[in-house]
């Protein structure tokens, strides 16, 4: 069940992330403006980038599902969005902590990136309820894919809109988060953390998919058992699920 590939991935994730965080702690210089608390940057920003990338990836997989009707794309779309929502919680909490340490508030409305992320996060919070409220699995996949595509397009557009709404009100403290202006000794741990976070995303997605596949197999066996026991009406059996259902 746990392939060697998954184990390798997990190992690579642990090594890269630990390496990145150690470098961030000891190698990266302390930023002149914000001091030590700027180190939150190395966990917060890669997490945010990967979460947003996951949302967009979910949209791409949704589009592929609509084109091919291959359940594997629906599964990927679902898992990508699921993982991104979980990472999104981390992004908002670490973002809050950072805002508190830098500006003394838990949430900074004038920080466009944080606000945009909150809106996107709230939107994707409805993904699970949407799936859950559609009973027919095929329709569930299709509608979820339409949502994923629309929301995936919304992500970049929303960032443009929110940034435009706050032109130059707040000093761009986070200007260096774009990466371009980073000094090299900050760049190395940052990009390493970004790679590690991506690996983490991939690893967790694989775990989640293994989980869903196993559940599909269990459901399949349950149905077979039910049939063998001669209960011809399995109406109550397939428990309502928000996850893509794997036909085993």
């Amino acid at each position, binding site marked *: 069940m746990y392939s060697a590939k998954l184990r390798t991935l997990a190992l690579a994730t642990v090594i890269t992330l630990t390496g990145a965080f150690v470098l961030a702690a000891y190698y990266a210089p302390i930023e002149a403006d914000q001091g030590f608390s700027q180190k939150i940057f190395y966990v917060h920003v890669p997490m945010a980038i990967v979460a947003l990338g996951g949302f967009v990836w979910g949209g791409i997989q949704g589009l592929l599902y*609509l084109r091919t009707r291959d359940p594997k794309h629906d599964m990927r779309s679902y898992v990508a969005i699921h993982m991104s929502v979980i990472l999104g919680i981390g992004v908002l909490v670490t973002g809050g902590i950072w805002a508190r340490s830098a500006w003394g508030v838990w949430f900074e409305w004038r920080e466009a990136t944080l606000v945009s992320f909150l*809106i*996107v996060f*709230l*939107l994707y*919070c*409805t993904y699970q*309820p*949407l799936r859950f*409220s*559609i*009973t027919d699995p095929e*329709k569930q996949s*299709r*509608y979820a*894919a*339409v*949502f994923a*595509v*629309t*929301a995936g*397009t*919304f992500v970049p*557009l*929303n960032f*443009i*809109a*929110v940034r*435009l*709404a706050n032109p130059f009100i707040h000093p761009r403290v986070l200007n260096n988060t774009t990466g371009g202006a980073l000094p090299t000794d900050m760049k190395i741990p940052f990009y390493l953390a970004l790679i590690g976070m991506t690996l983490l995303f991939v690893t967790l997605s694989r775990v989640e998919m293994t989980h869903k596949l196993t559940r599909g197999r269990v459901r399949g066996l349950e149905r077979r058992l039910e049939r063998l026991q001669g209960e011809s009406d399995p109406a109550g059996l397939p428990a309502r699920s928000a996850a893509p259902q794997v036909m085993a």
Partner: protein
Amino acid sequence: MTAAGPRPPRTTPTRTAVAALLRKELLLERRVPQVLPAMALFSVVTFVVFRFALDTTSVEGRTASGVLWVTLLFAAMLGAGRLFVADHEEGGIDALLLAPVDRTALLIAKAITFVAFLALVEVVAVPVFVVLLLEPGLSIADVGRLALVLLLADIGIAVIGTLFGALAIQTRARDLILPLMALPLLVPVVIMAAKATAPVLAVTGSGAPGGRYLAVLCLYDLVFGLLAYAVFDFLLDD
């Protein structure tokens, strides 16, 4: 009257289908007015609620803009939830699918209907808002500017409302899920519309809305218009 031999497939032009759908929509709303009066009444009641919730007798500028847009947005959610109810319950969607018609005709017709509904509601709600809550100082030019912002925002709201109205109608918790999905999606519209309206409603100030807000509104309308056009088919494709 029976068919003699095979016939070539025929298709009704999308324009004809959209016209037929629009005619049906207006006929239904005229025969049994449901959505429009509800939306208009909701807007007026909300203005009254704001008067007490803000504990103020008049607003201007940013607050005025916010009150107006929150009210219109929530009224729009009310309408979006009802947009497909008759078709869903009385088989209008099936009937359309049986006809040799491009399915996006439904999206186009519904979006146009929704824009028309929103515009009609605003024709009632905005004057009421001006009379009840707005501090005097609205010039004729301001009314024109307001109308432009309203129109651009209405198109975006109608596109999202139609797409997600059609999506939500098939779910069990449709009245719950529609605003949850549509409100975050419409935040950019609210940001841009509110920003653009604030100077218009201000007692003092330039009065002209920032051009870039209108540009983003246009971009939003365009992107989601095209997107809805591309994915709407899949909502009807069982």
